[in-house]
């Protein structure tokens, strides 16, 4: 009965998401594309934070995926969707390499250490004009080839078409992350976060799980970067600097990281505020002031994030996670 209702609700959400761009203005459609990509980015960032470490290098990792996918498709002629996957894998591999030095640190040290590692990668992009294009980055990145599926002619320059493509990819990725979090692996991430020593005493290789979360999150971030690169057609080092990272961090924290949807909510609300509401009200040049004020007010008055507002409306199902992890949902 309940699962039937849930199915109906999901179908409703799906239809709404498919219909969404048709109710928007042209520039809002463009913003929607980037917003959807950023949803993947911020959701992957939460996966990284599940084991309790906060990184300031996540946007650079996204950039690794973008640069890698751009180079594979442009220089080696790799089919673009395949290049995107390879880009994601490259980001995951680089993250695995970085995890060695980074996971010797914790807390504040990890935060700043990840920032330093990211800056080094960015400086390398700037420094080596071959193959990274130096400060101007790479331009003329091939787009996703257009396809005609009969029901819809996908011209990927058009934001609606690209939105559908991104929506499909991002939904699938979110589903994967959801499955991971609601599995014993996800439970182990939580365990490593709350009490890593106790987890180790139970036979959990805490560092391996930290690395695992970091690598998976980096793979998804890399994919987000690739999705963005092939839409804009260009990447450059400034697109992945600390200012962008600050936005991801604030989306996650303002949204709240206790739930899967918290950071996504934060990303959507803050982006709509900043890109549509504030611009629409004519605050073109005072946006940073208002945005900064909103950040402070939100952490002061909603310390548990926007998700706590949702929590007040929806009754909390305390045991739903447990039920998922032990595989009881099939029986219910």
């Amino acid at each position: 009965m309940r699962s039937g209702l849930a199915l109906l609700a999901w179908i409703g959400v799906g239809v709404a998401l498919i219909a969404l761009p048709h109710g928007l203005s042209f520039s809002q459609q463009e913003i929607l594309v980037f917003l959807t990509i950023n949803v993947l980015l911020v959701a992957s960032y939460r996966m990284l934070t599940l084991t309790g470490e906060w990184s300031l290098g996540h946007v650079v990792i996204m950039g690794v995926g973008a640069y890698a996918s751009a180079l594979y498709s442009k220089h080696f002629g790799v089919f673009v969707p395949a290049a995107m996957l390879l880009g994601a894998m490259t980001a995951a591999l680089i993250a695995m390499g970085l995890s060695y030095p980074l996971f010797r640190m914790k807390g504040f040290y990890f935060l700043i250490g990840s920032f330093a590692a990211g800056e080094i990668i960015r400086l390398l992009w700037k420094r080596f004009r071959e193959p990274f294009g130096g400060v101007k980055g790479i331009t003329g990145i091939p787009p996703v080839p257009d396809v005609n599926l009969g029901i819809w002619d996908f011209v990927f320059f058009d934001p609606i078409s690209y939105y559908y493509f991104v929506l499909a990819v991002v939904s699938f990725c979110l589903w994967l992350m959801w499955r991971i979090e609601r599995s014993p692996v996800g439970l182990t991430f939580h365990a490593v976060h709350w009490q890593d020593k106790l987890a180790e005493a139970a036979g959990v290789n805490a560092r391996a799980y930290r690395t695992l979360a970091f690598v998976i999150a980096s793979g998804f971030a890399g994919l987000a970067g690739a999705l963005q690169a092939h839409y804009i057609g260009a990447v450059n080092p400034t697109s992945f600097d600390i200012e962008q990272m600050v936005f991801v961090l604030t989306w996650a924290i303002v949204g709240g990281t206790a739930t899967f949807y918290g950071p996504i909510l934060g990303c959507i609300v803050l982006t709509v505020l900043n890109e549509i509401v504030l611009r629409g009200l004519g605050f073109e040049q005072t946006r940073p002031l208002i945005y900064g004020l909103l950040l402070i007010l939100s952490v002061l008055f909603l310390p548990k994030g926007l998700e706590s507002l949702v929590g007040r409306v929806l009754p909390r199902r305390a045991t739903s996670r447990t039920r998922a992890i032990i595989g009881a949902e099939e029986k219910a």
Partner: protein
Amino acid sequence: MIDLIAQTGLNALYAAAYLSLVAVGLVLIFGVMGIVNFAHGELFMLGAYVVVALYAGGQVPYLAVVAIGLAFVGVVGLLMEWTMFRPLRDNPLGGLVASIGFLMILQALVSMGFGVRMAHVPPFTQDVIAFSDRVRLPVQRLIVIGAAVVLLGALWLFLKRTRFGWALRASAQDREAAALQGISINQTARIAMFIGAALAGVAGALTAPLISVNPHMGHSVIVAAFIVIIVGGVGSLEGAVIAAVAYAFIHTIVTTFWDGVIADIVGLSLMLLVLIVKPTGLFGTADRA
């Protein structure tokens, strides 16, 4: 060549001076309050703009303006503590986000008040101590070096000799234990925030005539300051000073004899190397989260 090395040494000394002032403030705030103050670079910027506002007009003597800058930015620090960091004491990530919000507000306010382009600060003095034709120390730079030594020395005496200093050090070691010993967390947080912000502000005020003052100038100092406090170990004020000196010398030498971009890469790589070898920094002790 000797001249070149001597001049490089003087250049590095100045860089070490203002960097230590910024880094020590950042360490103090983090140590006592457990908050990563991302807006610290903007406090530095604010100190410089106090000079723009008061000194560029020419009515107020420079050293008085520096003192006003110190006090004003210190008070802004108190304001931050009172409005944001105290309510967010048990929420370090919230504190981080609040400081980011504050950073945006400061940048926007300064851009509106003073324009987005660089602001003008007339020189305080153009005197130069010339050791030789090619080894010259401008008095303005000497003042920065001298002020850093005096201020950091005073801070050291304050921390070692006074009751407040003792309370501050105890809180930086272990906040709960300090509270159990009857130390007021609010009071120590206020003192730490005032001193930390004032040091950043005075560094900005002192260097304002020497660097280009613009609303986004905080960014470059905070990156260097983060590197310095990580290398020094986040619990350690002495470590911050030693690391600031080391970083300034290495960065200056690599820039002079090699390349400025390479100097950045070298600085960041050295920091990562230190972290790999000793994950708590050279002088850090506790593994703080």
